[in-house]
């Protein structure tokens, strides 16, 4: 696996899809992400950045979720071709 393939969800470009590898972060954040379906193995797609650059809008499990980049750094993903 090359290094470029593994990244955080915050670094995905709009339209790019990735598979979630790991969810880290403080207990509350992690739990919240898990509950919202941000789980290892799920597919996440970057949709857009907010007009001011942050937060981001991602699609996961068929719905739209917004989160701050600082939170998306805790989601390790593997880019899909």
């Amino acid at each position, binding site marked *: 696996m090359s290094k470029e393939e593994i990244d955080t969800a915050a670094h995905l470009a709009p339209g790019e899809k990735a598979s979630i590898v790991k969810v880290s972060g403080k207990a509350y*954040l992690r*739990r919240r992400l898990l509950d*919202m*379906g941000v*789980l290892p193995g799920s597919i996440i797609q970057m949709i857009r950045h907010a007009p001011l650059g942050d*937060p981001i809008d991602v699609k996961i*499990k068929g*719905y*739209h979720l917004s989160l701050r980049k600082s939170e998306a750094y805790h989601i390790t993903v593997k880019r899909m071709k």
Partner: protein
Amino acid sequence: MNRIRLSDVRPNTEIVLYKIVGGMGMERKLTEMGLLPGERIKRIDSPSDGPVVLVVKGAKIAIGQGMADKIIVEECGQKKIIKVALAGNPNSGKSSVFNNLTGARQHVGNYPGVTVEKKEGIAYCNDYTIKITDLPGTYSLTAYSLDEVTARNFIIHEKPDIIVNIVDASNLERNLYLSTQLMEFGIPLVIVFNMSDIAESAGQQTDDKAMSELLGVSIVYTVGNKDKGSKELLEAIVRTHKERADKNNVSVNYGREIEQEISKVMVLLNREIDLIDKYPSRWLAVKLLEGDKYIIDFIKAKQGSDEIIKQIEASRAHIKIIFADDAETIFADKRYGFINGILHETMTQKKDSHLVVSDNIDQIVANRILGIPIFLGIMWLMFKSIFFLSEKPMQWIEQTQALVSGFVSGLLPEGSLMQGLIVDGIIGGVGSVLVFVPIIFLLFFFMSILEDSGYMARIAFIADKFMHKIGLHGRSFIPMLLGFGCNVPAIMATRVIESKKDRFTTILINPFMSCGARLPVYTLLIGAFFSEKISSNVLFSLYILGFLMAIFMAKVFRRFIFTGESAPFVMELPPYRIPTLKGLIIHMWERGWLYIKKAGTVIMLGCIVIWSLSAFPVSAKGDLTKSYIGKIGKAIEPAVRPLGFDWKIGTALVTGVVAKEIVVGTMGVLYGAGERDSGNPFSLRGALRKDVYPDGRPVFTPLIAYAFMVFVLLYIPCLSTVAVIKKETGSWGWMFFSIGYSTALAWVAAFVIYQGGRLFGL
């Protein structure tokens, strides 16, 4: 069914409370005793002249005959009551289903001890009375969020007969995640596929029979915003109650390894009879293994729980070794896996084509370039409409008030205390509350449009970067903006903010957003002491000052009081939907009515107090300098003297606590500006300019006027706002804190401006 007065009920009969007709005060008193509409009660005394004795929720209550006359009850006869808890994700259309089921038979209150709103309602089906409690909308049932803890505590302590779980049929995967947790309570579950029309039109087909078998629940289809399926849902509730009452629910199978650990914990828990009596043991075991802080602390506090805690720690460590990940992730993963398995077997077409329209809207509305202009445009349009539409009704209310005052005045002896009390105290007080009603109702109407359409989440999305910089949440933006109109609805609008830290900070800084009621004060003083050329700049500077102060204080609060990291932003962006008029009107009415009830009583009281202070002692004969209020003004003069204020300004500030418009009125009275027509600003402006101290110095200079306006901007906004702060924080402490710190801040700011200005020779 038969509705009678409680006083006419035969002894030893079970009845259901239908309505309290004795007015608000009585309703509140009885509500506090647990007498709520829909509550099952039993009368146990035999009729006599003595008190009526009731059994409510196992407790005995005695009330007077007079009260019993004002309570309408329904005889239940053979009737049965089903207690239902309504659970579901936010944006699942839960409240529209609730409204459809209960119609106007609703009651809004709070869950005991917390400020989470609790809605209850009643529906009837066949021989059953169905008492429905709307739980807070949640995605999960963890210990981290107040809403989630409230929801699960309700289920555990109130033990509803049935849980009705509303799910968004077009987004089953995430919505059923909550269902998997609800199944663990061991209470029969009815799953409602809401918005099934959207799912259907996207080509989604579900084998509901198979799914109902696999999940062990009843499944019903509804379209909440079109009021479809309510009857079927009620029938399903009754059917489930009859058929499934003693059957066990299916639970998620977490796999052999985890199930083994669950069993180990359950064996230990089952020894604790008193515990198992109250809590479903499987639920407890799962929560403990998941590391739920709330439940672990609860078990730890029990005597002899060491063995359980040891087992938990061992099990969690074991899970971590086997799965190479911690228990929390594994449990979430298994739940989603369970859902996926079921959906795979029972559903065809899982594509999210229902999002096409919504996604297209977001292409424009949340666009990087267009997003902000569109957002500002919508805000501008909303404010314009609110102020435009409320202008006429406000005038009508003022005119009606003037007519009524005039009419009542004529009936009473001129200059009498009675006339003063009724006309200035009571009618004036009621008027000052009513005049805000149109603007408040309109504000909430538009807020509901933003909320129900899904745009509110986009506002948070767009504004979050900026709001986060000042330590707040994207959702704090709307309340801040509303504050420029009126702080009362603005503070009520903070309910959309989930985290307590963010919410309380937003509440406490909100009064610095200069509301509409402060404008008359600015207009009066700017007109009197500043040239027309700079007047708009002076006015603008006040708004900016308020805003900067809000940002500054937000930072201070986040740094010293509400410390720690800010809550995660993680938030669903729901699909856009067209709001229904019924939903909008219900929302508007609920919030508006709350304002009238809460703020109304306080303002009324405040106006009467202020009036009394200005009317007494009688010997003052209308001379305010000799009245109590004048004496208070004189007494506080030393405190305001360093700000350059004389006793008249001090007095106006005291009366201004009730409402900011009153500052102008008081100045009018103090300067005797044409007796009753204190509304004429021009004569008052002249009087202000001409006023001098005995030594010939002018009482007002532009500098003093500016310090005065800054004080008005920053100190206690008004009694209604204070009342709403009390209501929304649920604490007298925060209310007094808000009063105290804002007044202190106002004093310091005015002091700096006045003394600083003098140093510069202004």
